[in-house]
């Protein structure tokens, strides 16, 4: 199997995912097309060489429906011959797009593929695309479905992460994200989003609250206690009966934010890079996805990381930098415990708690953030990872070139 390389990546800033969010007036296909245009222009790319545009999307319905990858190709004026598709693995859709692109390159089926992702959560609310897992009583009853927030609280309860632990982590995420922006660490990869008449709508992540501290976080109310009372807590207890109850400790402040955004990465073989005269920035060492208990749901990161490490014949100590999606603070704290990762080594530029989690786009955004940081610190390897709905985890290991 030959290697797949990351040649470039670019992303939009993340806009608040509500009606007054800066990106709300931009359609998801337009948002994704702007990213594709930027990726093309930055690399002076002859788009007729692109053999697929794989788009991750978490709610592929309505204006995000029906192979938005192909729609974005047409909207971005890529060559008509470029096909496009859409893939879904909940929160890791964007990283799964990268992994599928890498598989196409490694297998020799393709030379050059765009992996991307998009989510306009202000226009297509999370959950819009339904799904048997959560909403078909036959399955939901059988597997004790609970919403993700309940799972996050369940993890915190089982592993003894208190409200303070979660809030402390969340405050650090805000500070790190604010610091990263003020240091200009994101400048080379975040492109401004324009409106129809060419004005800039958004240049920087809109949701960050740099002034956030433990005190302000402490005032927020737990979000999922009410849902728990409807029956979800007891559904979870039937599966985790060692617990007296579920401590509802996640709030809007220590969970990921709802935002709009898109991102893309250019993935190709060594040969195509040489032919085009572009330099690979990182090699994709391995990819993995795995299933875990759907009720606890968000514990996939560690097992998927271990599988990816095994596939790359690497050990935990071979990884210099970790980037795990901050879906909920408890998910990251658990992962740090399980793989023995110090806080200094993970999510060093903050994460979704500060900047938001545009479901289908987050994976490819994290990949880019990790790669930029490897370059900035002159480090070698990074493991990018997300917890995933319905009990899964997805991981990708990259090595700077």
């Amino acid at each position: 199997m030959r290697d797949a390389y990351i040649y470039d990546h670019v992303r939009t800033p993340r806009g608040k995912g509500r009606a007054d969010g800066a990106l709300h007036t931009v359609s998801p296909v337009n948002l994704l097309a702007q990213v594709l245009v930027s990726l093309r222009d930055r690399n002076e790319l002859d788009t007729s060489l692109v053999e697929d545009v794989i788009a991750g999307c978490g709610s592929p319905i309505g204006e995000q429906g029906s192979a938005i990858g192909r729609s974005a190709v047409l909207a971005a004026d890529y060559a008509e011959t470029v096909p496009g598709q859409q893939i879904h693995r909940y929160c890791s859709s964007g990283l799964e797009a990268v992994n599928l692109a890498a598989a196409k390159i490694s297998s020799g089926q393709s030379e050059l593929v765009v992996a991307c992702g998009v989510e306009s959560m202000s226009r297509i609310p999370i959950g819009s695309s339904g799904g048997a897992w959560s909403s078909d009583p036959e399955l939901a009853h059988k597997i004790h479905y609970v919403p993700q927030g309940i799972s996050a609280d369940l993890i915190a309860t089982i592993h003894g992460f208190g409200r303070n632990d979660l809030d402390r982590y969340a405050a650090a995420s805000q500070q790190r994200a604010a610091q990263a922006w003020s240091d200009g660490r994101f400048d080379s990869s975040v492109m401004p989003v324009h409106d129809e008449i060419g004005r800039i709508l958004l240049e920087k992540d809109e949701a960050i609250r740099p002034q956030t501290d433990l005190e302000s976080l402490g005032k927020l109310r737990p979000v999922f206690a009410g849902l728990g009372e409807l029956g979800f807590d007891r559904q979870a207890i039937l599966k985790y009966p060692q617990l007296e109850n579920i401590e509802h400790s996640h709030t809007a402040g220590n969970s990921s934010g709802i935002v709009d955004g898109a991102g893309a990465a250019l993935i190709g073989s060594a040969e195509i890079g040489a032919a085009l005269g572009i330099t690979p920035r990182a090699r994709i060492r391995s990819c993995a996805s795995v299933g875990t208990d759907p009720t606890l749901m968000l514990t996939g990161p560690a097992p998927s990381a271990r599988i990816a490490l095994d596939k790359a014949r690497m050990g935990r100590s071979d990884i210099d930098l970790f980037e795990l999606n901050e879906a909920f603070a408890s998910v990251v704290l658990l992962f740090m415990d399980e793989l023995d990762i110090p806080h200094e080594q993970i999510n060093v530029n903050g994460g979704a708690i500060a900047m938001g989690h545009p479901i289908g786009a987050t994976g490819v955004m994290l990949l880019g953030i990790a790669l930029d940081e490897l370059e900035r610190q002159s480090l070698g390897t990074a493991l990018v990872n997300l917890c995933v709905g319905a009990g899964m985890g997805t991981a990708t290991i990259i090595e700077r070139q």
Partner: protein
Amino acid sequence: MSDTLKSANSMNNTEFETLHYHVTDRGVAIVTIDVPGRNVNVLTPALHRELGDVIGVLAANESVVGIVLSSGKQGFIVGGDLMRIVRYYEMNRSAAEAYEQSRTFSRVLRRLETCSKPVAVVINGSALGGGLEMALACHYRVVTNDESTKLGLPEVTLGLIPGAGGTQRLPRLIGLEKAVPMILDGTLVDPAEALRLGIVDAVSNPDDLLDVAASWVLEQGTPLQPWDQKGFRIPGGSKLNDMNIGRLFQIQTARIGAKFRHNYPAPVAALRCLFNGSTVNSIDQGLRIESREFSALTRGPVARNIIRSLFINKRARKFRKDDADKSLVDTCKRVYDEEGQRMLAEGLASPLVRNAAWAAGMEDAPADLAEVRQSPDPMNIDFDFESLKQRLLAIQSLAAAELWAADQLDPVVADLSTLLGWGYPSYTGGVLSFVDTMGLASFVAMCDRFADEYGDHFRPSGILNARADNNESIYAHEA
């Protein structure tokens, strides 16, 4: 009598046993259901058959303009013949056979609503279960204003679901959200509430009911249900491309899971009927889905257990809570509490034991769990939850079975005492139905296994073993 109802020839047709009819001068066939030998109308196989037959006769009669269904008794129809459900279980029918049987009445009602003549129904008193389902299959419903009248589908409280279109027609009539409490919880409504919900078209004083129904047939009667009209949509929406519908099913699934603790198959079967039935575009397909679910429940033990103990035997013995065998209840409570203490002594944390009791369906947790100081370790998953649940029930059933084996305990009294006077879970049918459902030999074998693992207090006595070896069963079973 008003002009609408006048009939020169007031002779009743009497070829049927469970109903009779006459046709008014203006061509309204008034069908009166009057099941012989009963104080109230219940749905019997004869009534199923004859209702189908009379529809055929009247639909073919060109002088009949439309039909009014009514009751010859004080109430309308208060459900089905419960003894039949118990007998069906004992018969051990194949899935295909059970399905065909469950289709019978459902097909009759479908024929009723598609008979091409307008059908109105006079609900002169309580219409429950199959009675309300029959009314829902009519094109127009008028109900008495008598406030003591109840309308509803209480089948889930019997371990069943509505099996003659109730889970399909009610949501198509009033929307999924309003249908949920009636179908999943068996909530009953009075006439005013039924009108507000849209279950009936009119409320009338008892004297005018027939006239209102017959007038509707003559003046407005359309022989077409809303759901048989082109472009029909369920009010309030259906299908998962509507987020509100997704949320409804998520929350109801969680509520049902928590309320029934995964011990009762009926509520979740009802939920599947609502979901799958509202997702298919044809009511005929919805009715098939419902029949499949209904037939599966009649083959499982839970409906049999609930019906045999809490309806048939309770009524036959006129058993009330106060009649509970106090000494048996004390024995059950004692061995149950002791088992809880044993679990703590085995090193299990009290929340786990409490949750096992709750999940098994016990009303109360074993006593004195909270006083034992044991710090729960949420990471410790070294336990077999199913065994814990089973032990807490089995230890009580063993105590009762020993008394039964020594001819000191009547099974009916044992079951009703533990259900009504103690808090043993109803899905089992009671402390000895638990044994009966499993089979005495399997129960004794399970206790032996528990004895090997958890101590000799689970060891069945020689006499109980002997009766198990003898292939005896606690309740007499019809061949």
